[in-house]
């Protein structure tokens, strides 16, 4: 086997990889660049990446009766302040955090005890419950969104925070994953805890939970990324009530009135929504890749 690097072949490989990287990066480049430019620069496709950053007059601000001088801003400031002014973006972001955090916490509260019982306790019907979990793994929640929506509508829960969280409270994948992980925890550890007088309930939270931290962390990333980015379910569950909008729903609102002046703020909003996860990913790549590809462990 040849261990030496063939320089020409290596160069071709890098050329192909760089070309691919450019295509992958392109929309990120567009997004960030437009969020920095003035409406004129966006429409005329000028100004390079950063735009000229010439101060511009905010016409809307003038219309409100402010003096013209007070309404002069650079495009980048204009775009990012408009992102928060045009729509209650801050509220959307807080909604997003609230919903994703609630989903994850409830998923863990439901899944951990179940996974513990399935892996470490003997009880009548255990095989049946595990069979049920394996069957439910086949059902993608998005696919049954409609009947879930009908059920929530029947009990009057649409357009509430609860409707954003309820369908995701049960993560069969989480149960399955945690069960597989708990199977590797030695029984002796649990027996020792029992000898020390711990109840089964405190074994879960004081013994099993700490050992499961790495698996739980990966699952947290898996869950948070999926629900922060989710657009379909919030679109179905929330109609009209802007106070409950999650970040993707809020961003989508910009499209309603798509004249050129709104593009800058819209791209600024997109940048704000996408940045937290991308930044977290860049900081902890290995964990993120582990978490996102968790479903590959089946």
């Amino acid at each position, binding site marked *: *086997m040849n261990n*030496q690097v063939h320089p020409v072949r290596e160069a071709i490989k890098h050329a192909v990889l760089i070309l691919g990287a450019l295509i992958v990066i392109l929309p990120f480049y567009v997004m960030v660049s437009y969020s920095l430019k003035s409406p004129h620069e966006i429409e005329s496709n000028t100004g390079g990446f950063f735009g000229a950053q010439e101060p511009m007059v905010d016409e809307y601000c003038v219309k409100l009766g402010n003096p013209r001088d007070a309404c002069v801003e650079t495009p980048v400031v204009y775009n990012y302040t408009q992102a928060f002014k045009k729509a209650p973006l801050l509220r959307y972001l807080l909604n997003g955090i609230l919903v994703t955090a609630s989903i994850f916490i409830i998923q863990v509260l439901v899944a951990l005890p179940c996974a513990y019982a399935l892996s470490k306790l003997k009880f009548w019907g255990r095989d049946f419950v595990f069979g049920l979990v394996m069957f439910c793994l086949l059902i993608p929640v998005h696919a049954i969104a409609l009947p879930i929506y009908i059920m929530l509508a029947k009990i009057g829960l649409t357009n509430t925070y609860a409707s954003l969280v309820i369908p995701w409270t049960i993560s069969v994948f989480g149960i399955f994953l945690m069960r597989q992980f708990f199977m590797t925890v030695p029984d002796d550890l649990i027996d020792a805890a029992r000898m020390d007088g711990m109840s089964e309930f405190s074994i879960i939270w004081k013994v099993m939970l700490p050992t499961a931290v790495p698996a739980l962390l990966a699952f947290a990333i898996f869950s948070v990324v999926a629900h922060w980015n989710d657009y379909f379910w919030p679109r179905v569950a929330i109609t009209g009530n802007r106070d409950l909008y999650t970040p993707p729903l809020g961003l989508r609102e910009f499209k309603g009135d798509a004249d050129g002046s709104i593009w800058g703020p819209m791209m600024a909003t997109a940048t704000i929504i996408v940045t937290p996860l991308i930044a977290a990913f860049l900081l902890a790549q290995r964990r993120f890749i582990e978490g996102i590809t968790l479903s590959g462990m089946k």
Partner: protein
Amino acid sequence: MSDIRLNAIFKTFGTTEVLRGIDLDIRAGEFLTLVGPSGCGKSTLLRIIAGLETQTSGDVEIAGTPVNHVRASDRDLAMVFQSYALYPHLTVRQNMATPLVLRDLTFWERAPIVGHALPGRRPKVKSLHAAVDDVAQVLKIEHLMDRKPGQLSGGQRQRVALGRAMVRKPVAFLMDEPLSNLDAALRVHMRSELAELHRSLGVTFIYVTHDQAEALTMSNRMAVMMDGDILQLGAPDEVYDDPKDRRVAEFVGSPKINMLPGRADGHGRVAALGAPLHRHVGLQDQDVTVGIRPEHLQLTTTQADNEGWPFRVTHKENMGADFFLHGTVNGSNHRMVARARPEDVAEVAIGHDVFLRAQSGKAMVFGGDDRRVYFAEGA
């Protein structure tokens, strides 16, 4: 029939020197074992012969032709890997046929659908399957031919790996610890099978192992390697009886040779732990090490002529045909092991004090540089 010659092979990985100038002539048809502790460079050397790795400097010659720039598959060598490296998705028959398919069929004949339509393919496939069947018969694995490696036991996989190597009729077989994944009983059995296979094929075997017992039992010659050097090359009995280096003496033989601190006085007379050997060496006033194999120690109940060492028995190991006596020497912390026949130790119990003396002429003396120092003649 062709010799394999290695000239001054050096190999460095980064700053670590793995091989430091190996010269080795491997004679056509011999069973040569490269043996040494892990990390001694034996596997790297085998891979360099195979062409899987490139030496930093030096030449590999096969049948007088340098093969430094010849690809692994074109050196006409076959290799049996430690993990067997069978293709898990192919049946035993397909595994064994792979080297022939790759060698004898053209690129187009190997292509999935197009290949089957080509006229030249059928006779070639037929003849290579015949070759595979012949080998299967020799190895007695005909009944396994349609199974996949995952369905075989360790020993069966071992045979298939051998079979894949044999179908090509190579000039030499390279084996990298092929028995180390087998259980102890099967390993002992396979030793004799491999030796028989070598005799019946009459082809060169180059065999890498860390197990000195495999080297002693199977090979025509063995090369003991340590830290990237060959310390000694020779027939197994030669290496065992006449080690040229202290490290070789310690590595070969089980239980290990007893090593005692000793000293050569002004006249070259050697004494170890207070007991004189009554022999002279060509060294004066120096610390030396005296080695005595367990089977070269005699057990006595009385000490004559100040010869031999007082020995307190701490453990009696019953091996059936023999006993191994473990104990301490001269009230010191030095441990020794002696082999004895059962009838000689029937009376000896743990805690007894007896005497051990070396059989005349069997002790070996090693100098401070680990090299063997021979006794002067007639002394």
